[in-house]
């Protein structure tokens, strides 16, 4: 792949670049960049991170005629070449060659929305002025035609001195012209159109006037207004129907995650138990079987069960985002968010935080105001992420009777779970208010949100995004959680005495647990829970696997009772409630700590955050258990 020596002359320098030829895909937000990227690369793509910053980017492979690989890098959307958010800075640095790991791209694909051509052309001026081989893609051709607009790509190409392709990424119409351009990039150096000197336009008004003139020369007729979008907005932003629909959507997402994912989760659990049992029956009795069945299958399996739920949440968020509703939801939420010192744009990361704080914290990058972003990052881990569900579900099933509260609609178990969600939300809001009245005090910030036309989400884009998430989740289960499970199993089996593993209480793990027991005893936790609290520092859901392993080893001789039975014997109801409260508040997630550190660029904030959340968790749990003891 390193044989890119065919480039010479006027072409950009590409020799010896490890990645081979690469093409940067850029454009304003909402121009259909990801849809085109997925069309071009399909499954031959992966998520990567820029070193130093955690701006995720997608890189995909396209093979040219000579069998050489070309790489397309999907960059964050930009409005201008003056970077204002983290996202925009990444794109800017790549385009001007300031990103050392990638180097300057060999060519650029600039994607613009043809239904709003003149405003989008404003971005074309500074990008074309870079003087790199650039293909200008006018997307949404189908939409443009349907609404009676038109443009002459050939005339535009003549005006701007760069090839132009009118396409529709969502239907695939015209995409072959983009592929053709890509192949040209790989096969031979394509010089920028010779002798075309692009004017340097300093000010925005000058660029806008240029864009208007170029649009006219290209015979651009703006399409009729998007009638459907306006009709829908009249309903979705209506004074009465708007908030109602907003609530229905949010509640529907939750309901869907819990009830919709259940059959799939049961299925996965069944599969894991069945395969674990099968594995156990084929292996000879001994240390290896114990490690594999109790350590690996028990530990990793208890986490993999939650894959369907996480994917379902990401599916819902993906549909809401790609359809355009999420932008409206942010506008509706802005007034309420402003009361706690946040802004509407924080609604999107905070909603994703119900799935997982890690992508949520990455999604805060769209918030331009630094203090708004910091506040959102700091409160996001309080939102009840899906990793808390395993321990909540387990404890609720073991300790909360399912007394009906509102007939068939709400049982006590569901009410307790809902209460835990509310608790996390209150902690987040309280923390935001606290931050705003102390370290992050400042004048009101600006909230600007573009409302794109409503669009049908592309199934391919949704599925590819889900696959990303599944891979990331399974990678975590296969690395962090696997290591913790195996490590725990080993610590629970050492030191050997007379050629036999010790009783769990005498093992290294047991000794560690008993060492922390005095600190957590007032919370109602014994040493076994103590081990779980320590292992779950890696990830919350690990505690379920840990308890499974501990009780499994403890009851190895007898027919091991289900985890629920063991817990009932080991915990008081006060301790169980305290444990739920502990998990509602504590920042038991190494990935979150790491992502906060990378996003905010220092250890100071994640350290403060970890200590603050741990403090709330410890004293919240202490209070819960002591109140239970007092009123029992």
């Amino acid at each position, binding site marked *: 792949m390193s044989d890119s020596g065919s480039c010479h002359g006027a072409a950009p320098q590409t020799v010896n670049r490890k990645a081979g030829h690469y093409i940067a895909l850029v454009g304003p937000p909402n121009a259909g960049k990801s849809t085109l990227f997925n069309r071009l690369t399909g499954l031959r793509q992966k998520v990567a991170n820029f070193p130093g910053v955690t701006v995720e980017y997608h890189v995909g492979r396209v093979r040219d005629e000579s069998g050489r690989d070309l790489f397309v890098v999907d960059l964050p959307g930009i*409005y*201008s070449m*003056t970077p*204002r958010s983290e996202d925009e800075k990444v794109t800017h640095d790549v385009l001007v060659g300031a990103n050392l790991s990638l180097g300057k791209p060999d060519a650029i694909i600039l994607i613009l929305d043809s*239904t*709003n051509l*003149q*405003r989008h052309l*404003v971005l074309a001026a500074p990008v074309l002025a870079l003087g790199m081989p650039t293909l200008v893609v006018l997307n949404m051709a189908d939409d443009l035609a349907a609404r009676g607009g038109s443009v002459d790509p050939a005339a535009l190409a003549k005006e701007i001195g760069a090839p132009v392709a009118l396409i529709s990424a969502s239907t695939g119409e015209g995409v072959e012209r983009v592929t053709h351009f890509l192949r040209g990039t790989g096969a031979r150096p394509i010089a920028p159109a010779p002798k075309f000197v692009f004017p340097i336009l300093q000010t*925005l*008004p000058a660029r*806008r006037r240029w864009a208007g003139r170029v649009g006219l020369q290209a015979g651009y007729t*703006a399409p009729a207004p998007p009638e459907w979008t306006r009709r829908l*907005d*009249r309903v979705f*932003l*209506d*004074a*009465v129907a*708007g*908030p109602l629909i907003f609530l229905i959507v949010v509640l529907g997402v939750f309901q869907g995650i819990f009830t919709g994912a259940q059959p799939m989760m049961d299925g996965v659990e069944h599969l894991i138990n069945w395969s674990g049992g099968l594995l156990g029956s084929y292996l000879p009795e001994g240390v290896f079987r114990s490690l594999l069945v109790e350590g690996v299958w028990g530990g990793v399996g208890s986490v993999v069960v939650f894959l369907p739920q996480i994917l379902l949440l990401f599916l819902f968020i993906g549909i809401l985002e790609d359809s355009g509703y999420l932008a409206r939801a942010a*506008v*509706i939420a*802005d*007034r309420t968010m*402003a009361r706690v010192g946040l802004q*509407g744009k924080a609604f999107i990361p905070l909603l994703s935080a119900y799935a997982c704080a890690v992508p949520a914290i990455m999604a805060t990058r769209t918030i*331009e105001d630094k203090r708004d972003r910091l506040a959102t990052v700091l409160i996001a881990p309080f939102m009840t992420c899906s990793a808390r569900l395993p321990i909540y579900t387990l404890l609720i099933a073991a300790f909360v009777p399912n007394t009906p509260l509102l007939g068939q609609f709400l049982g006590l178990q569901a009410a307790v779970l809902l209460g835990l969600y509310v608790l996390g939300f209150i902690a987040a809001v309280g923390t935001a208010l606290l931050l705003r009245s102390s370290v992050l005090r400042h*004048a*009101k910030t*600006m*909230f*600007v*949100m*573009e*409302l*794109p036309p409503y669009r049908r989400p592309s199934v391919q884009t949704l599925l590819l995004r889900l696959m990303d998430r599944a891979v990331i989740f399974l990678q975590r289960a296969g690395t962090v959680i696997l290591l913790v499970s195996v490590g725990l199993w080993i610590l629970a089996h050492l030191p050997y005495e007379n050629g036999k593993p010790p009783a769990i209480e005498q093992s290294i793990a047991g000794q560690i647990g008993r060492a922390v027991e005095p600190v957590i005893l007032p919370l109602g936790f014994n040493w076994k829970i103590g081990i779980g609290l320590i292992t779950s520092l890696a990830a919350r859901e690990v505690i379920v696997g840990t308890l499974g392993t501990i009780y499994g080893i403890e009851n190895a001789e007898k027919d091991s009772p289900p985890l629920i039975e063991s817990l009932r014997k080991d915990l008081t109801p006060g301790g169980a409630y305290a444990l739920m409260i502990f998990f509602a508040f504590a920042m038991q997630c190494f990935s979150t700590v790491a992502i906060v550190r990378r996003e905010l660029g220092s250890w100071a904030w994640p350290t403060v955050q970890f200590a603050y959340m741990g403090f709330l968790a410890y004293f919240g749990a202490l209070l819960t258990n002591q109140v239970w003891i007092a009123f029992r």
Partner: protein
Amino acid sequence: MQLSFNKGGGETLAQLRTGDRAYLHRLDLPEEMSQRLMELGFLPGTIVVAAGSAPGGDPRIFRVDGSDIALRRDTASRLYISAQPLSEAELL
């Protein structure tokens, strides 16, 4: 940062009623904020239409240069408007 209120500038976008339109005259905002708004189409001389609002009246939605943009009322009250198009001199 304290924003300076420029008196005598007349009407602002915040006063525009839904369905009304006007020419954007001047952005009285810190450089960074006005730059962001200009990138989204809020350039002096452009026609802005008040297109609606979120439930409760804030933020408001403005139609400018082909797209719908939501702005808080206090931001909109920094964007001064005029009923007539700007003269050549004002545009520069």
